[in-house]
Structures are given as C-alpha cells and as structure tokens.
C-alpha cells in the first residue's frame, strides 16, 4: 500500500493538527460555518489528548459570546506568552477586525484562520475569495499583517505552522486565509514529511514586570514615529517571509518561456495549475505558452517576483472567486505595462475547464 503514512483528513482537521504541532495552547472562538469544525475539533482534541497514555490537559479553549470577545481574549492570551489562535469566517471576520487592529497597533503575535464564505453579510455559508481586502486592510491603520493563502491541505498545514513561527518572530498579526472548500475537503495528506522547528515564546507582559503596551497615543508625532518604525520592521520581515510560486506545467522548469500569465491564489490556483497543464500539454500546434504566478503571501505581496514575470508576459489573466480583489493587488504592485484581464466569479468556485476556455478565447 502506498498510503501508510498518509491520513484522510478534512481541512479543519489539518488546521487543528497544525496548531497542536505548532505548540498552540489556547483557542478562543465563536462558531461560524464553514469554520466551525476547527473549534469543535480543537475542543475534542483538548478533551481527549493523551501523551504517553496520560490525559494531557495543556490545551485550553473558550467559546466566547461573539467574535469580538474571541479576538480580544486572544490578544490577552498572547501577552501572557501562550501561542493562541482563533478561527472565523465571513461576518465573523468583520467582527474580528477591532481586535486585529489592536493586535496590529500593539504588535501582538496573534494567529487567525479565516475561512472565506460568500459575502456581503451572511452571503452564503459555502465558499468565496472575497475576504482578501478584509484580511489585509480590514482594520483602521495601515494593514501591517502577514497573510498566507494556501491552495491545498498540505499547504494549509505548512502555512498554519509558519503562521505561529512568524507571528512570534516578527510580532505582527498573521492570517491564514483559507476558504470553505478547502476546509470541508477531505483528502489524503502526508503531514509527517513537513518538518518545521517551532519558535519559543516568552510572556510579553508578566505579573512581576511593569510594562505599558500602548494602543493610544497623545501626540500625532508619537504615533507617526511608531508607525514609521512598524513599517520599517514590516519591510524587513517582508524580505524574509514573502512567498510565491511559478508553475509552467508538471515536470517543467519555472524559467520556461511563456506569453500568457495566469494569476490566481488559494484553492483557485489549484484549478489554474490543472488548466496550465492541459494547455501546455495540448498537441504541439495548439500548445500554449502559458504560466501561472501564485502569490502565497498576499501581504506582504511578492511584487518583485510579479514584475520579473510580467516583463516577459504579453497578457495577464487574473482568476479569482471575487470581483477583483486579487486583481487590485496585482495592479497596485505591477510596474510593467501589460494588459490585465480576467475571470471574476464572486463566491463561486472556478474549475480548470473554465480557465482553459478563458485562455483559448
């Protein structure tokens, strides 16, 4: 059997595995579809976890009265030095912004798993990619947040692990921006092959030391200076954490020449890979010179990588389950004059066949 180390897991189970393996000790949350199972699986894990045959009571949880409370509780717990996270979706992500903005201002290492669902408002409980803007710029301030966009379950595990490490290394809020499809999908995954060393944590505030972490400033210059320092730290972090992927078909090198560049993120990039494969492998006469660029960190955005690729592209196609939130990010960062068009299906899934059709038009 080829499957001895692989497990058949849902996205929510993968997230909980990642959080446990990252050394997270506490989850605050308020249930909302399609992210509820993260909370329920975490609770089950906390209640039934055994280490060496003994009940392990070190994992804690609290279902708060709403997402606002969950977010602020998380801010408190990380100050005490515990790796803490929450998970939310749609309208819950909206309510979470107050606490996230405070975490941004106070440089708190919080981790939020966002499970995108259709919007506006309650929208649908199923799926979308409409929380990109919210994930990056949902708070008042400058949106100094690290945002990962995983496109499959293995990456969901990997980037959730990285989220904790980088939150505690750089002290910026980290969001793992997933979606309802990814969270509900169950696939065979081999998580043991992913080796990541956990970062050690330290209490930001302890009972014995007095420390005043501010989230309000008396003078405008004070805040201005603080923000300038934060921005500098964020840019330094960017150089170390920015991730992206170039794909030119299975077995092809990343430097292959192409004329058309598809840009997608998250689970849609999975479909886009299939499309690129199909187009590249089409009989020679029709085989298209097409590549995929996938930002893995949406914030900070891999602008340098994008522009390198855009230089050789004749046309860019943005494909996303929103009306253009990724396109706007692309356009903001694009320094090369190249035509940008795309396929925008807010709150609906996009299959590889649709992308093939778009490029064959």
């Amino acid at each position, binding site marked *: 059997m080829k499957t001895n180390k692989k497990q*058949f897991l849902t996205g929510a189970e993968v997230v909980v595995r990642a959080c446990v393996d990252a050394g997270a000790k506490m989850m605050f949350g308020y249930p909302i579809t399609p992210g509820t199972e993260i909370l329920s699986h975490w609770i089950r894990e906390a209640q039934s976890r055994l280490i060496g045959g003994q009940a392990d009571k070190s994992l804690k949880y609290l279902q708060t009265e709403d997402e606002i409370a969950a977010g602020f509780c998380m801010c408190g717990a990380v100050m005490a030095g515990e790796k803490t996270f929450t998970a939310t979706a749609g309208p819950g992500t909206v309510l979470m912004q107050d606490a996230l903005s405070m975490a941004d201002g106070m440089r708190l290492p919080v981790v939020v798993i966002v499970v995108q669902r259709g919007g506006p408002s309650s929208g649908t409980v199923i799926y979308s990619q409409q929380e990109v803007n919210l994930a990056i710029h949902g708070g008042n301030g400058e949106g100094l947040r690290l945002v990962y966009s995983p496109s499959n379950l293995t990456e969901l595990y990997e980037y959730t692990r990285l989220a904790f490490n980088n939150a505690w290394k750089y002290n910026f809020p980290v969001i793992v921006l997933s979606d309802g499809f990814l969270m509900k999908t169950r696939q065979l995954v081999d998580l043991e092959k992913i080796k990541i060393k956990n970062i050690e944590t330290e209490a930001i505030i302890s009972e014995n030391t007095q420390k005043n972490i501010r989230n309000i400033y008396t003078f405008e210059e004070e805040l201005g200076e603080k923000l300038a320092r934060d921005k500098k730290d964020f840019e330094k972090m960017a150089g170390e954490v920015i991730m992206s992927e170039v794909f030119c078909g299975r077995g092809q090198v990343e430097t292959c020449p192409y004329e058309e560049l598809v840009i997608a993120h998250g689970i849609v990039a999975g479909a886009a890979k299939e499309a690129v494969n199909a187009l590249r492998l089409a009989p020679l006469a029709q085989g298209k010179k097409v590549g995929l660029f996938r930002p893995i960190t949406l914030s900070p955005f891999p602008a340098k990588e994008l522009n390198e690729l855009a230089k050789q592209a004749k046309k860019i196609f943005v494909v996303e389950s929103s009306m253009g939130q990724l396109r706007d990010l692309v356009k903001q960062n694009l320094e090369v004059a190249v035509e940008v068009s795309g396929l925008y299906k807010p709150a609906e899934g996009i*299959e590889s066949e649709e992308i093939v059709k778009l490029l064959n038009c």
Partner: protein
Amino acid sequence: MNLKILLSGDGGQGIQLMSDLVCRAAIQRGFFVSHIPNYGLEQRGGVSLAFIQISDSEIAYPKFSKPDITLILSHQAEERTAKFSITNSQFSVKDYEEILKKNNIPHQSYNMFFLGLLARMLGEKGVLQREKVFELLREKLEKKPNWEENKRAWELTKNIRY
C-alpha cells in the same frame, strides 16, 4: 485516471456516509482520493451532494461539473443536479423504483441499493474492492436498526443489470 463521482440525495439519506465508505475503500487500493460535501442551510430536508474524485495522481481541485458517474437518490436531488452534464453512467432512483418495490426494499434502505450498485461498478473498474465497501459498511451499521433490510438492499445489486 481521474474518476469523478457525484452522489446526490436528500439530507439524511446517507450521502456523506456513502462517500466516506467509497473513499476509504479506494484509499485501500492506493489511490488519491478527494471528497467535498455540499449542502444548504437546512438542518434537514435539503439536498445533500458529495463530490468524489479517485485518481492515480494528486488532485488539485475538489469540485467538478462533469461527473463520470452520478447517483441521484431523490426527486429533489434530480432538480439540483440537472445543471451537471448528463453522463451515460447516471443512476436515478426513478429508474430503479420498480425493482426496489418488487423486492420490498423499504424506502430507508434505497441508499444501500445504490451504494451496492456503485461499489459493483467501481469494483469492475478496479478502483476498489466491492467487498471492502461492504466490510466498512458492516462495521458502521451492523449494530444499528434495519441492518437485515440494508443488507438485503445491498445484496440485490449483486446480479442486477445496469
């Protein structure tokens, strides 16, 4: 190979359970498997869909609109799945009602008949062992009510023409 299977029925008809058994049996044969459920807001009475893919390589995207095999277990599900491309391998409760009635299969065991049919077809395609599905099914349901009826519905599909 990437075989796409769409199961559909009313909420409570066991669509997700059926998917689970089929996936686990295919995993035992060493295949890559993906399953994603789709249901509405209703706690009961809505349509439940399951998108399954069984492949010999990694599966990049869980959804699809062109299933190779479709099971339709209710009238409501018929309407919901109408937008998916009709395939030759489409099995609807309306086509088998006569056989089911003739054999006195109670309505709540219809799903086992269709699971049996699906397992047989997938067994013939070599993506799973039909008996493995039954083994998993027995583990799950043997001690629950109506097991004899469920087993009878399953067994009815052994020699049926499809």
